[in-house]
Structure formats: C-alpha cells, structure tokens
C-alpha cells in the first residue's frame, strides 16, 4: 500500500516548483519534506542557490508556518524559496483586498477641518473646500471643485491619480510626493476637467483629463465588452 506522495517536485520552464499536498496534516507534510529533500541531497553538486516556488494548493498557512517551511527548505538544500503560492486567503485579507480595489462613492461637501479617508478609490460627488482633506489608498475622482488637499495613493502607490471637475487645490499629494498651488493663480484661468499624476521625473503634473487613458491604461477596469 503506497501512499500518495505529499511532496512532489516539478521542473517547469519558470524553474522548480514544490507541490505540497493540501489534504495531509501539516506535521506529515513537514516530515516528508524533510525526508525528501535529505534523500536527494547528494545529487546536488552545484553550490549556488536555486530559487524555487512552493505551491501549497488549498492549504492556509500562517506567516509563522510559512517561515518554518522556508527555513526547512533552505537548510536541506541549496534551495531558496522565492514565493509561496496558495489558493486560499483569510477573510480579513480578502476584505482588505476588496476595499483596496473598491471605488467608494461619497456624496457630500468636505468642509474645512474635515478629513475623508478611504482605503481604495474615492469618487466624491461634491466639493472639497479649502482646509478640507480627502485621502485615498488609490485614485481620487472629484465631481466638483477641489479647493482643499487631496492625497491619492496614500500607502505609497505612485501610479495613483487625482482627477477633478474643477482643479483648484491648495495642495496635491500622490504617494510621497507633494505639489502645492502656485502662489499667483490667475483667477480667470480655466481649471476644468483636469487630472494630476506623477511623471517619470517624479513631479506631480496637472494635465487634461483625456491624457489619462494613455498614461494610466490600468484605470480601465471594464473587461470584455466592445
């Protein structure tokens, strides 16, 4: 009676992949991994490190367990774990991912002293008055006048953009970068339908809204269709 193997090693064109079965217990898995890697050790002659991917299927590993596996593989062989791939994530992570990729729609005026903060993209239907602040993990779209401060990509996403029907900000921030309004602002200047982004020289640039579809093609989320 031969057990199904819990650990299989496969070579793919992207390198070695360790497939770890997801039906056995974690302890069994560790044991087998230990044996298998020790058994093969003599065939390995080169000394340099080879990176491998680990595929754990439908098994959820805590960060501690992931570290343990990495350590185990690392000790036995000249193998370096590149990435651990799993088909499952926790609800918490899933929620966070969802929030970060969500467009939150808010209909109100952000007044002086108020701060509106969302983890993902923000669609604000209303104005941001001077002294008011909007902060988003992703992009900021304002259907109204931006007269206060807008901070897009607040977790460091430099690809984030800020767009407004009327762009008269006191300050713009994207990721780590800050741009303030010019000290002398011609009153009659047209500041309508504009967007702000970080260019290749790491400056925040304000441009026509239409420039975005070339600069940030990823903004389009529509899949399929015509």
């Amino acid at each position: 009676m031969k057990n199904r193997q819990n650990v299989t090693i496969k070579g793919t064109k992207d390198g070695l992949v360790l497939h770890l079965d997801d039906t056995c217990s974690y302890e069994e898995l560790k044991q087998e991994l230990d044996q298998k890697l020790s058994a093969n050790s003599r065939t390995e002659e080169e000394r340099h490190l080879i990176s491998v991917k680990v595929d754990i299927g439908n098994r959820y590993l805590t960060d501690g367990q992931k570290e343990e596996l990495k350590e185990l593989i690392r000790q036995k062989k000249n193998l370096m774990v590149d990435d651990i791939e799993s088909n499952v994530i926790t609800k918490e992570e899933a929620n966070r991912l969802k929030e970060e990729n969500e467009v939150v729609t808010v209909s109100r005026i952000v007044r002086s002293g108020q701060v509106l903060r969302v983890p993902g993209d923000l669609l604000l239907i209303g104005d941001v008055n001077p002294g008011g602040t909007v902060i988003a993990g992703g992009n900021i779209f304002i259907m109204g006048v931006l007269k206060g401060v807008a901070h897009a990509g607040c977790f460091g996403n430099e690809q984030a953009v800020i767009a407004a029907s009327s762009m008269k900000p006191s300050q713009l921030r994207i990721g780590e970068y800050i741009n303030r309004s010019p000290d002398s602002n011609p009153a009659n200047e047209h500041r309508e339908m504009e967007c702000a982004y970080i260019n290749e020289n790491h400056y925040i640039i304000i441009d026509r809204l239409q420039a975005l579809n070339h600069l940030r093609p990823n903004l389009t989320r529509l899949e399929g269709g015509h």
Partner: protein
Amino acid sequence: MGEAIVITSGKGGVGKTTTSANIGTSLALQGKKVCLIDTDIGLRNLDVVMGLENRIIYDLVDVVEKRCKTHQALVKDKRFDGLLYLLPAAQTVDKSAVTPEQMQELITELKQDYDYIIIDCPAGIEQGYKNAVAGADKAIVVTTPEVSAVRDADRIIGLLEKEKDMEPPRLIVNRIRNHMMKTGDMLDIDEITQHLSIELIGIVADDEEVIKASNHGEPIALNPNSKASIAYRNIARRILGESIPLQSLEDQNKGVFSKLKKFFGVR
C-alpha cells in the same frame, strides 16, 4: 412650543451679537415673544448692545446652578410690551461653568413660554460653542465677505451638519460693501453661497448706523429708515416663514448704490 435658533460664525467680530440683537428685536416687532440668550460667558456684550446692562441682577450661570428661578434672571426690554427678554451671560466665570446638558434643559424650559429663543454663540468651536448649539433646533451662520470669515463659516457648517436633530444651517452675509463687491475686491454673494452651499437667509450691508446704534444700546432694527434695519427685518420675516425674494434685497441694495452714485455724481 417655540423654536431655538443659534447664531454662530466660528470667527469673531463678524457680527454675531449685533445679528442676534437685531433678529430678536425684529421678531419682537413682528409680535413674537422672544428670549435672547447670551452664551458668551466671561465676555458678555449682548446686554450692552441691547442697552440692558444696568438691569442685570442674575445671569445664565445663576440659573443653571439654581441660585434663582429662570424668570428672575430674564431682563425685560421695556421698549417691547413683554415681548422681548434677555438672559445675560455671567461675567465672572468662564465657559466651563455651564454644560451642554444644562443648556438643553434650560432651553427646553424656555421653549414652553417663548415663540423664539435666539442664542448668541461665542466665537470658536470649543466649550462655549458646544453649549450654545446644544439646545438649538436651527442655526444661522453669520459671515462677512472675507476669505477668513468664509473659511471659518465652512468649518462651523461642517460641525453643525454633524449635530443630530438640527435642521441644515442658513447663512447671513454681513457687512457687505457694495462698491468693493462690484470692483471684485470683495468676495461676491454668489461666490460665498456657492462655496458654502447652504441656504442664504439674508444679506446685510455695511452701515455706520449699525455701529452708532449699538453704541447707544439701541438695536438698529428699531430705526425703520436704515438699510441694515430693513435687512434684519426681512431676515426676521423669512424666519417666520414668509418668502421674501432675496433678489428684492439685492435690488434694494442696488437702489441704494445708485442713489449713492447719484449723490457723488457718477453716471
């Protein structure tokens, strides 16, 4: 059952006290029973503007600490036949002498006897503001056509919108100088209302008569010939639910402006 209206602004010196005094006076002129409450504890002056300073015996703090009955502390304005009363602020203590709960209780009590309770709010957004807003059903925000005053009004409106059980605040633009607005040296009314996006309940021109009247302890609303007085009376009528188009106010101001122009011989 009356209603309590708080007059607030955030910034100091935009004319909250003058506005409170004149709205109160105008409402009394319309035959309503009005009680003015000064919540600027420590820096009271509604009594001075109303010319009632020398009649104060008890004050707001005496009332909430039950050292006297509420009616004992109310100062009656002799010019109105039992229609206008003032509850003065204390001058010897500070804002922390009163809590929002005490204010709520007091205003609920006063609402039984009066048609309108006009609450004069101190500047700032701290304890004094919280006390003033606590018992109010409605709010009127006073601003002047200056960037700093409008900024503070915006902040205050944001805070008022968070208050439960309060109707959306309405706006008075005070101290308008028509010639400066025309030349674009002052924010114009459209700009202000668009920016703050709340309902405009009145505009009041900058008028030297207002200062004169306040110094004499006689609210300008008592003088029927001043343009500021008419503005305040119109505001009072709008509070009563009459619909007086704001446009007519502008026309009236334009009228004054053209009169002035005529006076100076400008075409």
